[in-house]
C-alpha cells in the first residue's frame, strides 16, 4: 500500500458493497472537511460498513450513539467546543442515511436546527433502509419497489411521494440548505466547502445510488446518479437563508432513461400511466426550481 492511499481520511477496507455510492460520497465529503473535523453518525449503512468492530475506516474523531440522536450528540460536541473556545477551527458534522435523517432522527435534527448550532448535517440519501434489507423510508420515491412496499398485482410499489426534507430544513430558517449528488462530485465538494464556510446550522442532502437496493449493475452508480439529475428527479439546488440562490441547469432527459436501469422500477416500465406520474414529478421540479435555461 502506498503513501497516498494511506493518507485518505476515509480508509479503504470498509465493508461497503462493490459500487456503493455512499462510501464514495463519504470520502468526497471528508476530503473537503479535512482532519479538523468531528463527526457524529446515526445508525445506518454508513455506520455499519465503516466501523465493523473492532475496526474503523475513519481517520477523524467519529462517534456513533443511537439511530436517532446524532444531531443531539453533535449539538453537545459543538456546545463543549464553544465553551472551550475551540469551535472556530473545528468542523462539527452530524450525518445519517435518509431514514436516520428524515424519519427516525427528525426530532433531534429539528431541535438542532432550531437551537442554531454551528453544525453541518448531511443526509446520504439512498432512498430506503438499505442496511436492514431495503425497507421503505420516508424518502423512498414514488413507485419504487422495496421489501415493505413490494410491487405486485395490487401495488405499484411505494404509494407516497418523496418527503421534502430540504423544504422542512428551510422552514427552520437555517443558513444553508443544499442538494448534491455523487454524479456531480465537483458540485458536491463545492457545496460542502461553502456550507463549512458559513456559521450556523446547515443541511446537505446527497443522492447516493445503492446497487443492492436499487438493483442496478455496480459499475452504473455514477451514471444513474447523473441520470436522476438530468431527468429532473433530483434537482441540485442551493438555498441561503431560505432564498434559492442556485440551481443546476439541465437539458431534461425522459425519466424512463433513469428508471429502466433499476430493478426497483422494473414493474412500471410497461405502464405509461405510472411513468407519466413520475414524469410529472420531474416536470414540477423543473418548473419550480427553474432547471432549464430558456432561449429567448
Amino acid at each position, binding site marked *: 500500500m502506498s503513501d497516498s492511499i494511506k493518507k485518505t481520511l476515509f480508509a479503504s477496507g470498509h465493508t461497503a458493497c462493490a459500487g456503493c*455510492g455512499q462510501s464514495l460520497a463519504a470520502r468526497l465529503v471528508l476530503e473537503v472537511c479535512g482532519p479538523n473535523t468531528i463527526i457524529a453518525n446515526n445508525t445506518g449503512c454508513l455506520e455499519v460498513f465503516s*466501523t465493523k468492530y473492532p475496526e474503523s475506516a475513519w481517520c477523524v474523531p467519529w462517534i456513533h450513539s443511537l439511530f436517532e440522536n446524532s444531531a443531539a450528540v453533535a449539538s453537545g460536541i459543538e456546545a463543549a467546543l464553544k465553551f472551550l473556545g475551540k469551535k472556530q477551527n473545528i468542523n462539527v458534522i452530524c450525518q445519517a442515511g435518509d431514514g436516520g435523517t428524515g424519519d427516525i432522527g427528525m426530532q433531534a435534527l429539528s431541535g438542532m436546527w432550531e437551537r442554531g448550532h454551528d453544525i453541518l448535517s448531511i443526509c446520504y440519501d439512498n432512498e430506503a433502509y438499505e442496511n436492514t434489507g431495503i425497507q421503505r423510508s420516508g424518502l423512498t420515491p414514488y413507485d419504487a419497489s422495496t421489501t415493505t412496499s413490494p410491487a405486485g398485482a395490487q401495488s405499484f410499489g411505494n404509494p407516497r411521494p418523496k418527503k421534502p426534507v430540504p423544504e422542512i430544513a428551510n422552514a427552520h430558517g437555517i443558513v444553508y440548505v443544499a442538494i448534491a449528488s455523487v454524479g456531480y462530485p465537483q458540485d458536491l465538494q463545492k457545496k460542502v466547502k461553502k456550507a463549512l464556510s458559513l456559521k450556523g446550522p446547515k443541511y446537505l442532502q446527497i443522492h447516493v445510488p445503492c446497487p443492492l437496493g436499487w438493483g442496478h449493475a455496480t459499475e452504473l452508480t455514477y451514471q444513474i446518479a447523473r441520470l436522476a439529475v438530468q431527468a429532473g428527479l433530483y434537482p441540485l439546488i442551493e438555498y441561503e437563508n431560505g432564498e434559492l440562490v442556485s440551481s443546476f441547469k439541465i437539458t431534461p432527459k425522459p425519466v424512463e432513461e433513469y428508471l429502466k436501469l433499476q430493478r426497483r422500477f422494473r414493474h412500471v416500465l410497461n405502464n405509461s400511466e405510472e411513468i407519466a406520474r413520475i414524469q410529472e414529478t420531474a416536470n414540477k421540479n423543473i418548473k419550480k426550481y427553474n432547471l432549464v435555461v430558456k432561449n429567448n
Partner: protein
Amino acid sequence: MFGPIIAKPGTSRKNKTGSWRTGAKPKFLQKDCIACRLCLILCPEGCIEGTQKNSFHCDYDYCKGCGICALICPKRDIEMISEEK
C-alpha cells in the same frame, strides 16, 4: 459490553476486501491516459492513485471490482479483465 468501544483510526485497512471480487478486475492499460483523475475521484474504495499521465493504478488488496473506473474512463484506458481465483 455496555461501555463505549473505541477503535483506532483507519484500522479497517486490515480488511483486504480485494478478496470480494467476483471474477473481474480493472486493468490500467497506461497507454492513452490523460490524467483526468475521474477514476481516482469516483472509486468507492479510494484505492486508486496516480498523478501523471499513464501513472494511475489501483491497489488490488482493496479493489472490489465494481467496474466504475473502467466504465467512466473517457479514453477507455481501463478495462475489466477476468481473473482466475
